[in-house]
């Protein structure tokens, strides 16, 4: 499709420590179109965060992107040098992190933090940079931006800090925004305000990748969803389709364990068991040990994404071979108290 601005193909990222190799991302593919919001959903440790950080090589030093392609506006990001990547980071692709308290430098004023990258990228000079920062702050609903610019992160409330970080990401007017659990550290009312800002940005035409463990957050404004498990996508679907009829058993489990924003009273069913050890991923379907529908074939045969509908594919032979459609809300699931990881 012509308006695809990000096309990630078969991404593999590994972390090596001593002799153990952790395959955090293990063949991840997805696309993001212009003006589209895509959610990447999964438990902690599913590789969703590494999957996007790998694109700009923002991973710890012992990590390595070993395979794959990631075309952003026609350029393969993974083939770029560190120096070339730097011209894209924070200019064309911006990040919003989970906790603004730690992601903002505590000893620097907002002014410096909101303007320095504009100057690095040659987007503005000192005076115009301040002007752009003020605009970006107004845009995310920070009142009295001139005053805020002189303040330090610790002088702001949690919600304001998060807005300031989004303003920082926006100030360079990037074409793609990657928001990594941007609301996890916030309480419910603040979550909604931040999501409203992101929603508005999307409506203004910005592409957004939202990384979250919470489908309730993802459904708020995302068009499509990629469900990740053990370093790869197990289902890719339009958001509405997934919510109406999750195909992969893991998606079902995820949905069943999700608390709706502003909605309560629904029974939550946590997925029993734990995500696999990423240093020793099982041979067949990695979800098989926790899957209520698993059979012998699941344990031996690797699963790949197969199309099952318009813009929709799933990595489960039971679904793609039509043996089961939407997996039933797993009645067989025990009453394990394993809670879904909250981060």
């Amino acid at each position, binding site marked *: 499709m012509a308006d695809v601005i990000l096309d990630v193909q078969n991404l593999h990222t590994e972390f090596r420590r001593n002799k153990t190799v952790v395959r955090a991302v293990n063949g991840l593919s997805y696309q993001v179109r212009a003006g589209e919001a895509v959610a990447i959903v999964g438990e902690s440790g599913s590789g969703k965060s590494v999957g996007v950080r790998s694109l700009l090589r*923002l991973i710890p030093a012992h990590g390595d992107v070993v395979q794959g392609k990631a075309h952003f506006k026609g350029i393969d990001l993974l083939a770029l040098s560190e120096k070339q990547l730097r011209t*894209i980071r924070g*200019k064309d692709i*911006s*990040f919003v*992190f989970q906790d603004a308290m*730690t992601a903002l430098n*505590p000893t*620097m004023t907002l002014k410096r933090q909101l303007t320095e990258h504009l100057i*690095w990228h040659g987007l503005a000079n000192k005076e115009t940079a301040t002007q752009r920062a003020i605009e970006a702050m107004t845009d995310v609903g920070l009142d009295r931006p001139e005053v805020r610019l002189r303040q330090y992160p610790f002088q702001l409330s949690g919600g304001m800090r998060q807005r300031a970080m989004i303003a920082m990401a926006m100030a360079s007017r990037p074409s793609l925004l990657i928001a990594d659990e941007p609301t996890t550290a916030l309480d419910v009312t603040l979550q909604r305000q931040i999501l409203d800002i992101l929603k508005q940005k999307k409506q203004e035409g910005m592409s957004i990748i939202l990384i979250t463990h919470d489908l309730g957050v993802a459904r708020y404004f995302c068009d499509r969803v990629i469900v990740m498990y053990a370093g790869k996508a197990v289902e890719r679907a339009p958001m509405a389709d997934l919510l109406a009829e999750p195909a992969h058993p893991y998606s079902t489990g995820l949905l069943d364990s999700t608390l709706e924003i502003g909605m309560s009273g629904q029974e939550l069913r946590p997925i029993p068991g734990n995500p696999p050890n990423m240093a020793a991923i099982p041979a067949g379907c990695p979800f098989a040990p926790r899957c209520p529908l698993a059979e012998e074939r699941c344990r031996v045969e690797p699963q790949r994404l197969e199309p099952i509908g318009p813009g929709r594919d799933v990595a489960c032979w039971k679904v793609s071979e039509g043996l089961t459609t939407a997996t039933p809300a797993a009645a067989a699931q025990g009453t394990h108290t394993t809670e879904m990881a909250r981060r």
Partner: protein
Amino acid sequence: MVTIPAQNPLLAFTTQPMVRYLAARLVRMIFSLVAVSIITFVLLQMAPGNFADIQRVTSGASELSPAQASEVIGEFQTRYGDDVPAWKQYLKFMKGAIVWDFGPSYKYPNLTVQEIIADAFPVSATLALISVAIAVVIAIPLGVLAAVNHNRSADYIPMFLLTISRAIPSYLIALFLILLFSRQLGWLPTRGWPGLKESIMPVAALSVGSIAILARYIRSSMLETLRQDYIMAARAKGGGFRPVVFGHALRNSLIPFVTIVGPYLAGLMTGTVFIESIFGIPGLGLYFADAARSRDMPLLMGSTLFFALILMTMNLFVDLIYRMLDPRIGFETSGRR
């Protein structure tokens, strides 16, 4: 903790947090100085022989005119005479100390203690300042280099070498330098101060050990900072090595660094005593050791109080700088060192 109670009427006027903070610190400093003086005085009182006895023994060795000598002896008698009870001696001493008058020294009766301090302290301070300055200038890049190359050879080779200079006291380093540069190569003189050639070895001996300690500190502080989320965030904004390492990381690593350099410098000003005695540098440390050997009580008392004052002033100074550098720490909370 010994701080002023908040309801102290004197402090009610000063609503400014910084003024209040400073006032509290000053009162604590005075309290500590009094405590140090009492401890020192009591200890010295326990020494065999009283002040006047020792004075009688040593005054014969001094080159004073008879008129001067009788004047000095009169002064000693009123300050520390046999008939003066110990607590009165102490009060007399402290009464003088308040107006910066410690009376004459025993060993050098024609000099007052404050004159000796005024002469000798600048020497020690210069030595310490130059050494620390050199050490800081070398330690910061070394520590940063090691941290950004964490677990690579640029990290552990310098750190391994620095272990050696960290393990060995400065006086041993001084002796090794003498063995090498004076005895073997004959390049540098073993004694004399001031002078460029003469000060190379003392300064080097003091800075080599400091480099190790300071670089190690910078390295671990830097490693800690580099792990922070905001460093990742700065990289995600497109920051290169320079702005990320120097703009974001180094700045925040230097804030805790300040807290150790200050007391370290103060400690060095007193700890130069060994280097001063090896190289015959007429600093306060040399006088102090001399005073200890000849039991020059006024000089011991005076210089101990002076050193404690320097140490506390330095701590206060560091605290103020720390609070200025780190916007998160205000003056409301009275921090304790």
